[in-house]
């Protein structure tokens, strides 16, 4: 039979036979592919629509159910005693029992929920306040009850090789009160990983160890059992510095003789306070990383960006997030990763922004598109004078640190900017008083190409910023008083005062159209 020349399906087999074959498909993802193959198959699969549309419909339905839960809370406050509605979690779990296709749709959504993997720009990857998302499988070695909970999971009768982890997300918090408890918890966790480790995609590991070598060995033994990890967050819970530690040479040998497994699917890595040799091991064995977050808590911990990073090649790295001291931030020039997004959490007090701008401009000028700076102390004022920022590819700039600036001419070094958010120190705005920023911020000098905010209260739309930064869609200036001065794009209105948290970008746009 000629299988090369495309033919209508009925010339290959009678449609009744195709119907019998297609009837065996259960995965919605296979079904949707077949549905799009040809008209004849589309017709045959018409009745399976409620299966193969579910992966796309479920996220929308999920959001809808969430609003119902929200409404219910409101109702309770208003009426105090409504008829009890089925909880969304019950609805979701019930949907998993309807058919293979529905189960796959629900699980696919939870396993691929983007928030879980976007740790580079989020403080937490586990939002337990979310009333509705299935929580990770949390195993806490802090007391005997928790140890027994883990052991009871193993005794539930799940089949080895099956996946009982709906979210494929496991949290392991090992903060045992004594050696015996720690040992029993570690044994049970390893048994758990031996049976189901290959099913885990996202893992949040908080481990205890007495020294760097032990920490390396424990984590290595866990990682070897989780070969399909996509996202890993790793923290150390014990103050290992108080103990006798191995010499640097011994640690180096450990890294060479007992290398870490390569986690070929790992895309996101968050390391909080991770010492040598685990830190270098994780970076050198996982060159495919796309998102990396590094955090240092104490000044005498290992450097976040030690000299070896010069030789660490991460050609696919797109996002980098650093939480560290001033010294560390100035080491940024060592990295040669082609990142597009950079988020820096800067120290509470020091004046560092000027130097950071210089370092970032010289290191990432070709690739950086999104630059965010946060500060631990939101009241500290950074004085910015004679600063430069040269990032020709930058589209989004977000400075969430209180600054006093004379001018924002430095933005001219970023001609591709689309969105700007600044947090500025300005004098308090009295009630009923219109306050103009121009006298404080922006020099109204002649008519040269200086970014001017001529009387921004009434005529921001006439500012030359829209001409100089041609792609600019909006600029947001937040002041200390929890009020926001919003100045929206070319079509825009002159000003709006709003509380920041209530308004999304879409609403800004809507306001700019309707006003």
């Amino acid at each position, binding site marked *: 039979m000629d299988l090369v020349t495309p033919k209508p399906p009925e010339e290959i087999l009678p449609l009744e036979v195709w119907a019998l074959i297609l009837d065996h498909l259960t995965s919605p993802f296979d079904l949707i592919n077949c549905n799009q193959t040809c008209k004849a198959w589309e017709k045959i699969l018409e009745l399976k*629509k409620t299966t193969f549309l579910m992966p796309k419909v479920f996220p*929308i339905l999920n959001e809808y159910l969430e609003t119902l839960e929200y409404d219910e809370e409101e109702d309770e406050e208003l009426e105090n005693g409504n008829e009890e509605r089925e909880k969304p979690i019950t609805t979701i*779990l019930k949907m998993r*029992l309807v*058919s293979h296709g529905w189960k796959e749709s629900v699980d696919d959504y939870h396993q691929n929920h983007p928030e879980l993997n976007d740790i580079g720009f989020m403080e937490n990857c586990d939002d337990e306040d979310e009333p509705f998302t299935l929580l990770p499988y949390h195993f806490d070695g802090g007391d005997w009850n928790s140890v027994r909970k883990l052991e009871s999971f193993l005794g539930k009768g799940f089949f080895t090789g099956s996946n009982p982890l709906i979210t494929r997300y496991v949290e392991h918090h090992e903060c045992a009160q004594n050696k015996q408890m720690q040992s029993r918890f570690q044994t049970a966790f390893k048994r758990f990983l031996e049976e189901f480790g290959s099913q885990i995609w996202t893992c949040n590991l908080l481990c205890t160890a007495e020294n760097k070598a032990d920490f390396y060995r424990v984590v290595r033994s866990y990682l070897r059992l989780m070969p399909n990890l996509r996202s890993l967050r790793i923290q150390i819970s014990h103050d290992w510095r108080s103990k006798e530690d191995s010499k640097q040479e011994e640690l180096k040998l450990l890294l060479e003789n007992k290398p870490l497994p390569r986690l070929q699917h790992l895309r996101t890595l968050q390391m909080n306070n991770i010492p040598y040799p685990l830190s270098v091991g994780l970076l050198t064995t996982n060159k495919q990383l796309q998102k990396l977050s590094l955090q240092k808590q104490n000044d005498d911990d290992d450097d976040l960006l030690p000299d070896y990073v010069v030789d660490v090649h991460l050609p696919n790295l797109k996002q980098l997030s650093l939480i560290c001291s001033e010294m560390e931030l100035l080491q940024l020039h060592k990295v040669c990763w082609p990142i597009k997004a950079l988020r820096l959490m800067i120290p509470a007090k020091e004046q560092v922004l000027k130097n950071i701008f210089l370092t970032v401009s010289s290191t990432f000028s070709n690739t950086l598109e999104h630059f965010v700076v946060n500060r631990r102390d939101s009241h500290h004022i950074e004085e910015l004078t004679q600063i430069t920022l040269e990032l020709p590819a930058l589209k989004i700039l977000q400075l969430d640190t209180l600054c006093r600036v004379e001018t924002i001419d430095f933005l001219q070094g970023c001609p591709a900017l689309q969105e700007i958010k600044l947090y500025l120190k300005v004098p308090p705005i009295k009630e009923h008083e219109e306050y103009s920023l121009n006298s404080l911020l922006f020099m109204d000098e002649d008519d040269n190409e200086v970014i001017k905010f001529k009387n921004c209260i009434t005529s921001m739309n006439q500012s030359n910023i829209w001409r100089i930064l041609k792609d600019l869609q909006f600029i947001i200036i937040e002041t200390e008083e929890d009020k926001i001065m919003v100045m929206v794009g070319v079509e825009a209105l002159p000003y709006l005062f709003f509380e920041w948290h209530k308004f999304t970008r879409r609403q800004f746009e809507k306001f700019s159209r309707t006003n």
Partner: protein
Amino acid sequence: MALVRVISSDGAAFLVSQRLAKRSGKLKTEIETFRKSSDNSEAQPEIRIVTIRAEILRLVLQWLQQHQNDPVLPANQNEQDGRGDAEMGQSQWDRDFLAPMDLGIVMELILAANHLEVKGLLDITCKLVESKITGRTVDEIRTAFKLKSDFKGNEEEQTRLENRWCVEN
């Protein structure tokens, strides 16, 4: 009256007024983009919707026609006033509109309303599907959605175990 041609994935063209089309967030953006890029301000915009077939697009336009004088609902009602508007948006006409539909078609409408950003239609279709699941037994859900259990061996039992652990956990 300014018109716009909206073309479905299977090539059917619908000529509708721009005023009506602009009640869909997506079509509104598309019309504005066309305006900006076109030299001729009188030119009739043509918008191809590659993910929605004619039968479904017709239903969306029919719903928009019926609701063309309703106030436009905010994209996210909770940010506006903290209240859902599904009940508010559902009229007898809506109930009659949805009543003869197979749930497969309703699911297609959910995707279409979501894609075209038609909040009111999205609300009533989601509400309908949700009502066929919440408070029903698994068998009732299978009947409503014309599905049969395709679990083999003890897969269903395994799924029940997983669900139970989720709740206990």
